[in-house]
């Protein structure tokens, strides 16, 4: 039990992480970096779940389980994503996102 750290702090952190992630996803040009931004988002979510669970509903574990699953799935997602990024690299010889705009309008 972490003493003296109120719930809000965690939430603030998680929220900030979330929005950093979102902004990163929107701003950064490199596909890998965008992927990392996604990880940020997911982890902020994890924090949320765990914290809510720990502080508000300490008598159950749903939140923590949920975050475990999220971690797992995030891993899968990342792996597939990276595979595809490699595939992109094969085709366009770099991984800048703005080059991935063959199809538009």
């Amino acid at each position, binding site marked *: 039990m972490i003493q003296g750290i109120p719930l809000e702090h965690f939430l603030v952190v998680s929220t900030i992480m*979330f929005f950093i*992630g*979102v902004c990163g*996803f929107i701003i950064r040009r490199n*596909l890998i970096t*965008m*992927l990392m931004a*996604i990880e940020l*988002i*997911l982890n*902020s*979510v994890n924090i*949320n*779940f765990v914290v*809510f*669970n720990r502080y*508000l*509903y300490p008598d*159950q574990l*749903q*939140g923590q*389980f*949920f975050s475990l*699953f*999220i971690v797992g*799935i995030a891993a*899968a*997602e990342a792996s*597939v*994503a990276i*595979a*595809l*990024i490699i*595939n*992109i690299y*094969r*085709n*366009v010889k770099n991984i800048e996102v703005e080059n*991935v*705009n*063959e*199809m*538009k309008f």
Partner: protein
Amino acid sequence: MDLGQFILMRHELLLTVAALAILVAEIFTSEKNKSKLINFALVLFALVTFIGFIPGETGNLFGGSFQSSQLTVFMKNVLNLAVLIVFLQAEGWLRKPENADKISEYFILTLSTLIGMNFMVSAGDFLIFYIGLETATIPIAGLAAFDKYKSESAEAGIKLILSSALSSGILLFGLSMIYGATGSIYFADIATKVAPNALIALGFVFFVSGMGFKISLVPFHFWTADVYEGAPINVTSYLSVVSKGAAAFIFTIVLFTVFKNIVELWKPMIYTLAIATMTIGNLFAMRQNNIKRFLAFSSIAQAGFILLGILGAGELGMTAIVYFVLVYVFTNLGAFGVVAAIHNASGVETISGYNGLYQTNPKLSWLMTISLFSLAGIPPIAGFFGKFFLFTAAAGSGYYILVLIAVLNATISLYYYLLVIKAIFIEKNEQPIPEFRSSNSMRIALVMCITGVLVTGFASGVFEYIRSISKLFLN
């Protein structure tokens, strides 16, 4: 709990078995007769689909995390049917040499997404729901990038995986808020605890946008066109029908059951989304030349119509949506089937390429026409009934103006469907697509679609059945 209860999740199990079986079979088949796998998979899956239709008991598993009701079972069967049709249509394409070494992958990936959807459909809590969602999404990215040497395909894949990741991230963020507000991830519990407060509202919005991504509602729809265009046709049709249908279904269920307390909160939201989706979808579809992109936008517009059903909250809305999804399966797969057939035969996938098709391939032309008319909602084809019931549902809760807008949108959509028909029938063309005969399985698939399109409307039993089971489901 005893193992006998697992019969409740027979669909999921069967599919898993099928997927594994194909995997194993792939290991034990030699390089040269890989293509036999196709027949094997087809037969196997046809079997699975058939078994799925055998009525069995319904109930809950894992303390309500997994709920199986007649409605969900029906939905799963619809999905199976759709996938079967997709497989049949894919057969000719898979036999092409460039796909020789990826046959089993196609089936396994598709099946695993289907499993995910099945779980999603009968999810009883947000965890299962989320797992199902991701299982249903991630492999599709792989499928979208199936033609790995085509840059469009790769692009489609990356666009899909990244934006889906973002959307699921946002969705999760919403879920976490809802969890924080209600302290549960079980639909049943949440439903009781949901109240119109800021946290719930935010969580709900994030949830909606996450789902909006799957159903490709405006403004969460942008990935759709590009992915549909880039992905191989059979994947596209799968995306546009199966995954969208499943998502729409579960979305409806969650709104009707979990968030029914804040119905007054989400109705205006859905209202705006509906209008935006229909209109934007139509406006973009109007000037497309690539048939896949065209169908992508048209499917976006169709999603907008589905929202009308959601607005007609309650049993009729539920029925209308499920019915519409069913009709939509036949209709859209019919259209995509023709597109695939033509693509396999001639590589053409532009509307202008279809000019004068009727001179050489009248049968296909009529198929296309009927499917498109059904999409446009022209009687007496199934599409008309699907739309009409959606509108009836919406009108039932007094949204007459929305109905008017929707029908006017349907008129616009008729305009661009007619453009295709014009290309097929009226436009002159010196060298139209040469006459060809598509593979038997494709023919079977198309026949299934067309019969579905022509019969569903007149056979009122279907609608009545759905109505009865959704009544059961909702109370």
